[in-house]
C-alpha cells in the first residue's frame, strides 16, 4: 500500500499540469458530446482524433483519448433516457427503464442517478486499476477463446430477462440479433454470408443504423400510430435530482453494478455492454417486485449505468498491464500508446511510471469533471422534454437520419435505419422487446469467433473443450441453469398439488 500513494500523488502532480488537465477536460467534453449525438461513436471519434494527438505530448494525447472513451460512455445514457435512442451499445439497457421514467416525468432522477452511478462506478474502477491490476491481470491471462465464448453465452442467456414475461420471446429476439450479426464477410474463411450480393452488407450491418432504427424510429412510428391527437407522450418533468427514496432504491444496485462492472470489465470480451446487461438481469432477479422492471424502475437505470462505467474503467487493467485491449475502443487506445512509443504490458509500470500513474490520476480528475459538467446540465436536458411531442418527434427523426448518414456519408445507411425503424415498430406493436436483439447483435460476432477458435484449438475438435476448462465449464453450467431454471420452476409449480 505505501508503494501506491507516492506514485499516485506523483501521478496527480502530472495529471494536474495545465496541459494534461486541459487534455482531460477536452477529452471528457468531446466524449460527452459524442455520447449524446447520434451516429458518432467513441471508436470512430478516437480513430479520427488519433492522428491529431501525434503532435501532442504523448501523455496528454493518451489522457485526451481515454477521456473521450469514458466521457462517451457517460453521455450515451442521456439520449437513451430522454428520447429512447442509445448513444452506445452499453446504453441499450438504459433505454428500457430510463425512457419509461422520462415518460412518467422522472427524466431528472433517471439522469441524476445515471450520473452519480457512472461517477461511483468509474471512480471505483480507477481504484481497482490502481490496487489490483497485477492480480486481475493474471486472471485475465487465463481467458482464452473457450472462456470468452462461455462468458458471451452466459450473457446471452441473461437476455431473456430483458424481455418482460416471456423468456422465449426474448431469446427469439436474441437469436435474430445473433443472425443479423453473422451477416457479412466471414472473418476466418473470407466467404460472403447472406449479403444478397450487395457490397454494403459485406461489412455487415452497422450497430448505429440498427439501434437508432429499432429504438428511435420504431418508437416514433408507434407513437404516430397510437396517438389520437396532441397528447403528451411525455409527462411534465418533476424532480431534477433523485429523491431520498430513489437513493434508497438505487444504492445497492450501484454497489452491485460497481463490483459486476469491474469483474467483467477486466476480462477479455467483457465489454461495458455485457456488464450492463448482466447487471440489469441481476437487479431484476433480486428485486422484490420484478414486475416494475420495464415500467420505469430506477434500479434498472442505476445498476446497468454503474456497471457500464465500472467496466469501462476496468477495461484499462488488461490494456495497461498486459497490453490486451478488451474491445475496439481500447484497441485504438493501444494503437495510440504504441504510436507514442509506449508499449503497454507488465513492464509499463516500471518503464513508464509517469504514463501509468498520470493516466490513472487523470481518470479520477476526468470522473469528477464529468459529474460537475453533467449535474447542472440535467436541468437543461430535461427542458427538451417540455418541447411538445409533435415538434420533438420530427426533430428526433431528423437527428436519427442525420446520424445514420454521418456514419459513412451514405444514403444506404439512412435506408437501413428506416428499415430497422419499421422492424422496431412491428416489435413494439406486438409487445416484443428490441433490447435483446441489439445486445445479441453486438455479442454475436465475438461469440462466433471465440466458438470457432475454441474448436480449432481443441485437440479433438469437440465441444468438450468448453467443459474441460474450469472457468468456461463453470460459466456454461451457470448459463444452462439460468436458461432452464424458469422451465424447471414452472414444471414444479404445475406438478405441486
Amino acid at each position: 500500500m505505501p508503494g501506491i500513494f507516492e506514485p499516485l500523488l506523483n501521478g496527480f502532480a502530472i495529471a494536474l499540469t495545465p496541459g494534461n488537465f486541459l487534455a482531460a477536460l477536452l477529452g471528457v467534453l468531446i466524449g460527452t458530446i459524442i455520447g449524446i449525438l447520434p451516429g458518432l461513436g467513441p471508436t470512430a471519434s478516437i480513430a479520427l482524433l488519433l492522428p491529431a494527438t501525434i503532435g501532442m505530448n504523448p501523455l496528454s494525447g493518451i489522457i485526451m483519448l481515454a477521456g473521450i472513451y469514458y466521457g462517451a460512455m457517460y453521455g450515451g445514457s442521456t439520449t437513451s433516457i430522454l428520447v429512447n435512442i442509445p448513444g452506445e451499445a452499453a446504453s441499450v439497457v438504459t433505454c428500457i427503464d430510463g425512457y419509461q421514467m422520462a415518460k412518467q416525468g422522472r427524466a431528472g432522477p433517471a439522469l441524476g442517478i445515471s450520473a452519480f452511478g457512472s461517477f461511483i462506478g468509474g471512480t471505483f474502477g480507477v481504484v481497482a486499476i490502481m490496487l489490483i491490476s497485477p492480480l486481475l491481470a493474471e486472471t485475465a491471462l487465463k481467458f482464452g477463446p473457450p472462456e470468452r465464448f462461455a462468458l458471451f453465452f452466459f450473457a446471452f442467456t441473461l437476455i431473456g430477462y430483458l424481455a418482460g414475461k416471456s423468456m422465449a420471446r426474448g431469446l427469439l429476439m436474441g437469436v435474430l440479433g445473433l443472425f443479423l450479426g453473422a451477416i457479412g464477410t466471414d472473418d476466418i474463411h473470407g466467404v460472403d454470408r447472406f449479403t444478397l450480393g450487395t457490397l454494403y452488407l459485406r461489412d455487415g450491418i452497422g450497430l448505429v443504423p440498427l439501434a437508432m432504427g429499432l429504438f428511435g424510429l420504431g418508437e416514433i412510428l408507434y407513437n404516430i400510430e397510437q396517438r389520437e391527437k396532441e397528447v403528451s407522450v411525455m409527462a411534465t418533468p418533476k424532480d431534477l435530482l433523485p429523491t431520498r427514496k430513489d437513493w434508497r432504491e438505487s444504492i445497492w444496485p450501484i454497489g452491485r453494478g460497481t463490483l459486476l462492472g469491474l469483474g467483467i470489465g477486466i476480462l477479455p470480451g467483457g465489454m461495458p455492454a455485457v456488464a450492463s446487461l448482466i447487471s440489469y438481469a441481476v437487479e431484476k432477479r433480486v428485486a422484490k417486485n420484478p414486475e416494475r422492471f420495464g415500467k420505469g424502475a430506477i434500479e434498472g437505470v442505476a445498476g446497468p449505468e454503474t456497471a457500464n462505467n465500472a467496466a469501462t474503467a476496468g477495461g484499462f487493467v488488461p490494456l495497461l498491464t498486459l497490453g490486451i485491449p478488451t474491445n475496439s475502443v481500447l484497441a485504438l487506445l493501444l494503437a495510440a500508446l504504441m504510436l507514442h512509443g509506449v508499449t503497454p504490458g507488465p513492464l509499463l509500470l516500471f518503464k513508464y511510471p509517469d504514463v501509468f500513474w498520470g493516466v490513472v490520476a487523470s481518470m479520477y480528475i476526468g470522473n469528477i469533471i464529468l459529474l460537475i459538467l453533467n449535474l447542472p446540465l440535467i436541468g437543461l436536458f430535461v427542458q427538451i422534454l417540455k418541447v411538445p411531442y409533435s415538434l420533438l418527434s420530427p426533430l428526433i427523426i431528423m437527428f436519427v437520419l442525420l446520424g445514420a448518414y454521418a456514419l459513412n456519408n451514405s444514403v444506404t445507411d439512412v435506408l437501413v435505419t428506416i428499415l430497422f425503424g419499421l422492424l422496431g415498430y412491428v416489435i413494439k406493436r406486438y409487445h416484443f422487446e428490441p433490447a435483446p436483439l441489439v445486445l445479441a447483435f453486438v455479442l454475436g460476432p465475438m461469440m462466433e469467433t471465440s466458438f470457432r477458435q475454441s474448436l480449432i484449438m481443441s485437440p479433438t475438435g469437440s465441444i468438450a473443450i468448453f467443459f474441460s476448462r474450469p472457468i468456461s465449464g463453470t460459466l456454461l453450467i451457470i448459463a444452462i441453469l439460468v436458461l432452464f431454471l424458469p422451465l424447471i420452476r414452472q414444471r414444479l409449480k404445475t406438478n405441486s398439488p
Partner: protein
Amino acid sequence: MPSIDRIVGIGSIAGGIVLAVFSWQLDLGKWRIPGPGAWPFLLAITLSLIGGWLVFRPQPQTRGISASIPRWGKWAMALATLFGYVFILEPLGYIVATLLLLLVQIRWVEDRPWTTSLLTAALAAVISFLIFGLWLKVLLPPGIIPIRAGW
C-alpha cells in the same frame, strides 16, 4: 383469433429451415475446423426450436393480432416521407430535403399550423447543417444549394 406467439413461432420455424438450407450451402465444415455456415446453421436450428417453444407454449395473456391501425393514414404518410427522404437527400441536398421532411412531418403528420411548421423545419434544417456540416465537418450532400459542408 390466432395468438401472436403462435404466428411468430410458425414464422420462426419456417425461417429457421430456410436459413439452415442457406447455411448448409455455405459449407458447414467439420467440428475441428468449422466452416462459414456452421454458426448460422446452429442459429437456424435454435431459431426453429424457439419457434416450436412459442407454438406449443404461447404466453396465455398474449393478445391476438389487431389488424386495425388507429391512425394508419398519418402512419403511412410518416413512413412514406422517410423513404422519400432517402431518394431526395442527394439530388436536393441536405438542407432542402430535411426542410421538406420536417415540413411534411410537422404540418401533415402532426397537424401543427403552417407558420410553426415552416419556421421549425427551416430553423432545424439550417441549424443542424451549421452544426454537423460546417462545425463537425460531416460531408452532407449540397444538392441544389451550393454550400459544401465538411470543407
